[in-house]
């Protein structure tokens, strides 16, 4: 539900929310805001004058020994009224009603995106409950945050560009999800360290492929990577590579880091213990929220409060469980605000469940303008028709500003910001994601079509007993393994054994841990979309979510034929293609997507033709095989229009190789690939890109189907080909043709081209090395 990976364990969600009334909330949020004000003042001092270290209330020794105290980061200015942008605090309530703070995430505060998703999912599951309760909505909070961020980053009348900096591939899919939601809520593109470059007076995005040409200027980085690992010059070597000179860029005011460098120092345990004294000393106030006693639990006498929850054992009655609440405090224009909601985690021996946090609105509370919305939960299905795709069923990270478009006029601050809207960002990692979006879209489509046809024909062929049916069955199953490169696959199986065939098919459909499987290709496709919010149509999110749903059908009951699930996926691919073709601007991003799609389709076609037509077999078997290939390649209608004959390998090959009018032919792909490559920046003088395609076009242009499919001399039907790179079991048999060798060579050229494209556009062409004086 949350992650792109269809096999990722889904967290247990308890639909019973933690409900806080307005009074509870006022107490708690006031305490959290005070705490963050204190932490912010401490940051300003510890990374500034450091006067607090000279007092006897601060644990100077513990702070100075904390590796999170980044000495290089002192004296860095802040553009806003505060240094800290966001803090996530984990709190718990005691049985006596008081709140305690268990921990603060300051270096990398997280969880806000996840909170929104949980709210959205649950409000969909129980729309009437969410409709009938007057609770604080979450989106207006982010409007405030976004406005504050815009004002903070805006320079010289120009809209500030905020980007969200994440690790390229977070290990934890939930975290990746949370991060992309946050980026979405802030209206900021997601970038990785390789996309950024410091220069004289600015931090810029790196465009795909162009080293010398700086991309857009970045004014603020919402940092979701540990700050100690961001600058190899001033903070030392880092596994993330880092952005050289980033600390100095922040010091000179080129860019603001949010949260600032070294904010993790505020997580120091000794500092937490000293907060009550520090609060009196610095804010001249008593600290409202106490740190938890060192040992939390029943033995300390500090009994945690319990909250109504579903029974983890599965019983029908509600039970009471202790919970931890994760709440996010974010900088607003001149202070801090607390997200009125969040995620609660149960905290007992039973498996952890996640709960929504509701903050109810007092009965007398008058709804402000824009009250035609649902009071209560985020818009429910069927009521968000004015808000575009992001609210409809199954939307993954969508466009948050679209969600709140109805409320926007009420927000006076939005008016002048409209004209300052920045263009969508383009960076190397975004370019790479677009390229791979194209490739995986094509791969999912072709794998689904292949499996669907093979399932269909297997059913037909399985009911026959003829030799040709057996051969065709074996050839088609073998082609599945060859095309998806999921060896040994069917090559090691008896194609006549329905049980083992079924289990292999099932694995290819749903095993997302298996490279080449449909589920894995889909997960990769969904993954590439995480950075593409600005660049591809909003229409794609519901489609991607629905396709994810199809996998549950493929994995689940036997009630529905697998072919139906595969058809849903093929339909999804068609919708995605249409949405992209209809709405994507024809710019570099589009070209990179196109190149990815055409490359992938050409490779897939060549490998299918090689696996199915590469050996000569009996006329009857060939007719069956060629018929299936026509189905897979969606070329049956064209064939019938062109040739008034039964499907024959040579004629079908002629069509699929050379018909430039047929969108699924190889000639068509190569034409498009050629013209798209011409539009890519600096490609014309790049022989490493031009040469493989030129070689490929001349090779394939010279192919004569009759020649290509002539059995190689000296080999009898049934013998094993010497040129075949893939193992050919006896069951598939047939006489090898020169098609095998030719297709291998062509696929080789395509791989070379794909690698050259990636090297040219997405990978740094230069190397970085450290220098310094070794001996003193």
């Amino acid at each position: 539900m949350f992650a792109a990976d269809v096999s990722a364990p889904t967290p247990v969600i308890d639909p019973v929310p933690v409900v806080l009334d307005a009074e509870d909330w006022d107490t708690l949020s006031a305490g959290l805001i005070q705490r963050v004000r204190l932490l912010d003042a401490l940051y300003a001092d510890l990374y500034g004058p450091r006067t607090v270290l000279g007092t006897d209330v601060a644990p100077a020794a513990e702070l100075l020994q904390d590796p999170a105290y980044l000495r290089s980061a002192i004296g860095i200015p802040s553009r806003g009224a505060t240094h800290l942008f966001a803090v996530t605090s984990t709190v718990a309530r005691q049985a006596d009603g008081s709140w305690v703070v268990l921990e603060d995430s300051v270096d990398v505060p997280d969880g806000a995106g996840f909170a929104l998703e949980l709210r959205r999912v649950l409000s969909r599951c129980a729309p009437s409950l969410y409709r009938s309760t007057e609770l604080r909505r979450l989106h207006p909070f982010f409007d405030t945050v976004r406005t504050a961020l815009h004002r903070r980053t805006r320079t010289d009348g120009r809209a500030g560009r905020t980007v969200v900096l994440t690790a390229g591939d977070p290990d934890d899919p939930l975290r990746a999800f949370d991060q992309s939601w946050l980026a979405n809520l802030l209206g900021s593109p997601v970038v990785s360290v390789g996309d950024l470059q410091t220069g004289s007076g600015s931090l810029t995005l790196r465009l795909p492929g162009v080293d010398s040409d700086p991309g857009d200027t970045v004014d603020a980085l919402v940092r979701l990577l540990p700050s100690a690992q961001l600058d190899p010059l001033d903070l030392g070597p880092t596994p993330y590579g880092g952005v050289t000179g980033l600390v100095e860029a922040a010091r000179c005011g080129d860019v603001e880091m949010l949260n600032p460098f070294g904010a993790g120092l505020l997580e120091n345990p000794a500092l937490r213990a000293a907060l009550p004294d520090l609060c009196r000393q610095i804010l001249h106030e008593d600290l409202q929220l106490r740190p938890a006693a060192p040992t939390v639990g029943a033995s300390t006498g500090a009994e945690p409060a319990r909250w109504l929850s579903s029974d983890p054992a599965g019983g029908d009655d509600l039970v009471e469980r202790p919970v931890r609440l994760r709440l996010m405090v974010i900088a607003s224009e001149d202070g801090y605000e607390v997200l009125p909601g969040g995620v609660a985690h149960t905290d007992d021996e039973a498996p952890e469940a996640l709960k929504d946090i509701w903050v109810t609105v007092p009965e007398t509370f008058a709804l402000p303008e824009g009250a035609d919305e649902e009071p209560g939960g985020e818009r429910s299905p069927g009521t968000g028709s004015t808000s575009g795709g992001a609210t409809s069923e199954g939307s993954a990270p969508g466009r948050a500003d679209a969600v709140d478009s109805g409320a926007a006029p009420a927000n006076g601050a939005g008016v002048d910001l409209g004209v300052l809207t920045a263009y969508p960002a383009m960076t190397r990692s975004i370019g790479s994601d677009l390229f791979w979006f194209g490739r995986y879209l094509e791969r999912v489509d072709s794998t689904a079509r292949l499996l669907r046809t093979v399932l269909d024909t297997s059913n037909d062929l399985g009911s026959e007993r003829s030799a040709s049916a057996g051969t065709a069955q074996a050839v088609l199953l073998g082609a599945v393994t060859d095309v998806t490169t999921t060896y040994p696959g069917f090559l090691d199986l008896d194609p006549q054994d329905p049980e083992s065939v079924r289990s292999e098919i099932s694995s290819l459909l749903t095993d997302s841990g298996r490279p080449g499987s449909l589920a894995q290709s889909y997960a990769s496709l969904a993954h590439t979309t995480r950075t593409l919010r600005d660049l591809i149509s909003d229409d794609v999110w519901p489609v991607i979510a629905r396709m994810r749903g199809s996998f549950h059908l493929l994995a689940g009951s036997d009630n529905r034929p697998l072919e139906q699930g595969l058809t849903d996926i093929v339909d999804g691919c068609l919708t995605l293609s249409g949405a992209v073709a209809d709405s994507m601007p024809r710019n570099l991003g589009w070209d990179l997507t196109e190149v990815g799609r055409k490359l992938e389709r050409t490779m897939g076609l060549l490998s299918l033709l090689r696996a199915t037509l590469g050996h000569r077999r009996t006329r009857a078997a060939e007719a069956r095989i060629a018929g299936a290939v026509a189905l897979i390649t969606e070329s049956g209608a064209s064939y019938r229009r062109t040739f008034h004959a039964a499907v024959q390998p040579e004629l079908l090959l002629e069509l699929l190789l050379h018909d430039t009018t047929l969108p699924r032919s190889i000639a068509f792909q190569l034409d498009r690939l050629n013209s798209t490559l011409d539009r890519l920046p600096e490609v014309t003088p790049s022989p490493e890109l031009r040469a493989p395609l030129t070689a490929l076009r001349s090779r394939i242009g010279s192919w004569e189907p009759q020649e290509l499919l002539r059995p190689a001399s000296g080999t009898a039907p049934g013998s094993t080909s010497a040129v075949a790179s893939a193992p050919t079991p006896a069951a598939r048999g047939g006489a090898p043709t020169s098609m095998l060798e030719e297709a291998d060579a062509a696929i080789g050229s395509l791989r070379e081209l794909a690698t050259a494209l990636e090297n040219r556009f997405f990978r740094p062409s230069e190397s970085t090395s450290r220098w310094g004086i070794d001996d003193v």
Partner: protein
Amino acid sequence: MMSDHQHLRPQAPEIPLRSEGDPSADAVDYLVHHLTSYRYAKPVSRNYGRAHVEPRATPHQRVLSHEVVVDPVPTRLTAHTDFYGNSSTYLLVDGPHSQLDVHSHARVTVSERRYPAEAMSRPWEQCGPDHWGPLLPAESIDFVHPSPRIPDQGEAHEISARVFTPERPIGECLADLTGWIHANFTYDSRATTVTSTLEEVLAERHGVCQDFAHVGVAAVRAAGLAARYVSGYLRTAPSSEGALVTEPADEMIGSAASHAWLSVLVPGIGWVDIDPTNRTFVDQRFVTTAWGRDYADVPPLKGIVVGPPGATSTLDVAVGVVPVAPGTP
């Protein structure tokens, strides 16, 4: 385990004590040059650097002028005061270049250091944080604890125990520590790189001045006292007055390059600098640029170059610390 007979009997340096009726301290003016040159086999496209080369003001040193010149002309050249009060210089050369010269010039006045005998005869046990009193900043606590390049090492505790014997006067301890490191470690510029760890240096008994400074700091911290790593220069041969000196002077190690030593906090005095490499208390021959917990806080010059893969470079370093008559240009 170490035992006495395995080690040379150290010859301790003389403690420079202040006596009644001393004439006013002598001061020496120096022109300091520090030129670092990289030559690249193929042009590189961007170069980032961080330098700690500007001499800093101390009770014994006045900085009359300072300038860093970078060739090619840098797209950014900035300086700020770092966590420890040092001047920290950042440079960025953006655009193709085949050579990088970083040339630091300074003129400083260094005065003599002499210490009151009563403070130097204070037992070392009375020099720890509990005895600092309110005048010393709490931040000095930073120099009592292990640091990234000087982790807590068992062997450092053994050296410490040998030097810091019960009730021994701090002056004697520092003189003995200086002599002991000098006697038991071999100076070998090929034996170490900036990546040598303290553990390796202690095991191999080889190193350069920064390693000896690290050993000294580790031993002082093992005794519970504050010690910091100091980076700077040594006076070069006086014969080459006014010119850059590239040949090492005979008598002192480290005079043709940047140098390093350590400094120990002694209540009643402040920071007392000792140089184990040359077995001496630090005097007018030393120009101080920067200090920190260890080398990693204050490398004289380090950087990151972006260029074609596999590009090679050559490095030349020239340092001159030449006495000049006060008032001359």
